[in-house]
C-alpha cells in the first residue's frame, strides 16, 4: 500500500549548511493496517508522514502509494494535521464540503454529503459554526470529516489529538478506532505517546535519531474491542518505553523548509 524504498531526506539551507533528516528508510505499510510512528521529537517522524502525503519530496529513494510514485498531495491520502488548518473563513460544513467542490461537485450536493459525514463524526448541529467558535476536539472532528468525505484510501495523521485535553483525546481515539474498524482505511498515525501508540495501533514503528533510522518495528496484539487498561497492554507499554528510553532525547528542532510545501 505505502512503500518507502531507500528514502533519504536532506534539507539544505544556505546559511546553516545541510542537515540530514532521514536516511535509507525502508518501510512497507499494508492495506488496512493501523501503524503508529513513534519517536522522540525531532527524529523525523513528521517528515516521514509529509513524504507519504507528498508535501515534500525525498532527496534519495522513492515513496510509492498503491504502486504509484508519490509526487504531490492528493485526496486519496487524507491528512489530519496537529491543529489550526481548518479554513477559518469557512463554516464547519463549508470546510467539509471544500474538497468535494474542488473535485467539481456542485455546492448543494457537496453540502448534502458533508452534512452526512459531520453526523458520522458526531457534529450534527454545528454545521454553520465557524471553527474559532468550536472546541479543539470539535475542530479535529471536522478535520477528520473533511478528509473522510473524499473517501480516501489512507489517512495520515500527525499527532492529531496531542493538543487536546486528556478526556477529549481518549474519546476521539475511540471514535477513530470505530471509524477505522468500519471503513478499514490504511492509517498512519504519528505520535510521541507510547500509551497512545499501544492502544491504537496494530503495528508500532519506532524512529530514532542520529542518524534517523527505524529502531524497532513491532506488532501489537489487539483485542477486539480494545481495552485501554489491561496487564498485557502494560507489558507492551513497558517494552516500548524501554526501547524509547535507550534513545537520546532533546534533539535540536529541525528548521522548516522555507516556503516550500
Amino acid at each position, binding site marked *: 500500500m505505502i512503500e518507502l524504498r531507500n528514502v533519504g531526506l536532506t534539507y539544505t539551507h544556505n546559511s546553516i549548511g545541510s542537515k540530514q533528516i532521514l536516511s535509507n528508510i525502508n518501510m512497507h505499510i499494508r492495506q488496512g493496517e493501523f501503524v503508529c510512528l513513534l519517536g522522540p521529537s525531532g527524529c523525523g517522524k513528521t517528515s516521514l508522514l509529509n513524504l507519504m*502525503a507528498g*508535501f515534500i519530496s525525498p532527496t534519495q529513494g522513492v515513496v510509492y502509494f498503491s504502486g504509484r510514485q508519490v509526487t*504531490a*498531495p*492528493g*485526496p486519496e*491520502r*487524507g*491528512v489530519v*494535521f496537529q491543529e*489550526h*488548518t*481548518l*479554513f*477559518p*473563513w469557512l463554516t464547519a460544513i463549508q470546510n467539509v464540503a*471544500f*474538497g468535494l467542490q*474542488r*473535485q467539481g461537485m456542485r455546492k448543494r450536493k457537496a453540502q448534502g454529503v458533508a452534512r452526512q459525514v459531520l453526523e458520522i463524526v458526531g457534529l450534527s448541529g454545528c454545521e454553520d459554526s*465557524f471553527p*474559532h*467558535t468550536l472546541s479543539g476536539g470539535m475542530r479535529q472532528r471536522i478535520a477528520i470529516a*473533511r*478528509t473522510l468525505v*473524499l473517501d480516501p484510501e489512507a489517512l495520515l495523521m500527525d499527532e492529531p489529538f496531542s493538543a487536546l485535553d486528556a478526556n477529549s483525546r481518549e474519546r476521539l481515539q475511540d471514535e477513530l478506532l470505530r471509524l477505522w474498524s468500519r471503513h478499514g482505511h490504511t492509517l498512519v498515525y504519528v505520535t510521541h505517546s507510547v500509551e497512545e501508540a499501544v492502544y491504537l495501533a496494530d503495528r508500532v514503528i519506532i524512529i530514532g535519531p542520529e542518524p534517523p533510522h527505524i529502531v524497532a518495528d513491532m506488532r501489537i496484539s489487539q483485542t477486539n474491542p480494545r481495552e485501554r487498561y489491561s496487564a498485557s497492554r502494560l507489558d507492551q507499554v513497558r517494552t516500548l518505553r524501554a526501547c524509547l528510553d535507550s534513545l537520546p532525547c532533546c534533539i535540536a528542532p529541525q528548521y*522548516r523548509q522555507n*516556503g516550500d*510545501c
Partner: protein
Amino acid sequence: MRIFSKLKTSLVPVLGPLGLILAIWYGVSFAAEMNKGIDFPDPLETANRLLELLRGSSLHDASIYRHISASLLRWFKGFAIAVGGGVLLGLGAGWWRLMYMNVAPLLRILQLIPGLAWIPVALLLYGIGEEATIFILAITAFTPIAISTMDGVRQVDTGYIRAARMLGTGRRAMFMHVLLPAALPSMLTGLRIGLGNGWRVLLAAEMVVGTGTGLGFSIIEARWTLDYTAAFALIGVIAVLGLVFERIFFTSLEQRTIRAWSSGKDWTHD
C-alpha cells in the same frame, strides 16, 4: 441616568471633535481678521454658503452636485483599476518567488514616490483632463494594495496551503478559495490606505490637471473668483464624503469577513 450615560458614550466621540474643529476654526478666523484685516470665512459663513450651493447655486458653471459626482466617478474608476491591478499583481508576487524577487523592490520604490510626482508622466501620456487624473489616482492607490496583498499571501500559513492541496485544490482554486481569503486581513489594510491616498491625490490632481468639474478643480478655481467661502465649504464636503465612504465600505466589509471568522484576533498568525 442610564440614558444620559448612553448619550454620553455615543455623542461625545462625534460632538467632541466637531466642537474642537469649530473652536479652532473660529479662533483662526478671528485672529486672521484682527491681525491682517482679511475676510477669513468662519464656520457660519461657510455653512451658509454650503447651503446656497446645495440649493443649486452654480459654482464655476456647474452645480455642486455635478462637481461631487464628477470627483466620485473618477475616484471610483481609478480605485477600481488600482484594486484590479494591485490584487492581481499582489497575488502573483506573493505566490511565485521569482516574481516576488523582481516585483517587490519595484513596489517598495513606487511607495516612496508621492502621487503628485506623477503629474508630468500623466501629462505626457494623457494630456490635461480626465484620464490624467484617473491615472494619478490609480497609480497612487495601486501600490499599497499590491504590497499588502503580496505580504498577505506570503504570510499565509503553510498549513492552509498543504491542507488545500491535500483536498485536491488546483491552482486557480488555490488563488480564489485559499490565498485570497487568507490574505484578506492584510489586504484590507492596503485597500483602506489606497482608498484614502487615492481620494486625497485625486483632489490634488484635479487642482493641477483638472478640467471643468470636480471638487479639487472647484477649490482651485475659487482662488480666481475670490470665493474662499465656497472653497472652505468644499473642503468640508471632501472630509465628510471621505469619512462616509471609509465607514460604509470598510466597516461593513470587515464585519462581514474577518470579524465573522475570528474573535477579533488576527487568525492568519495564530
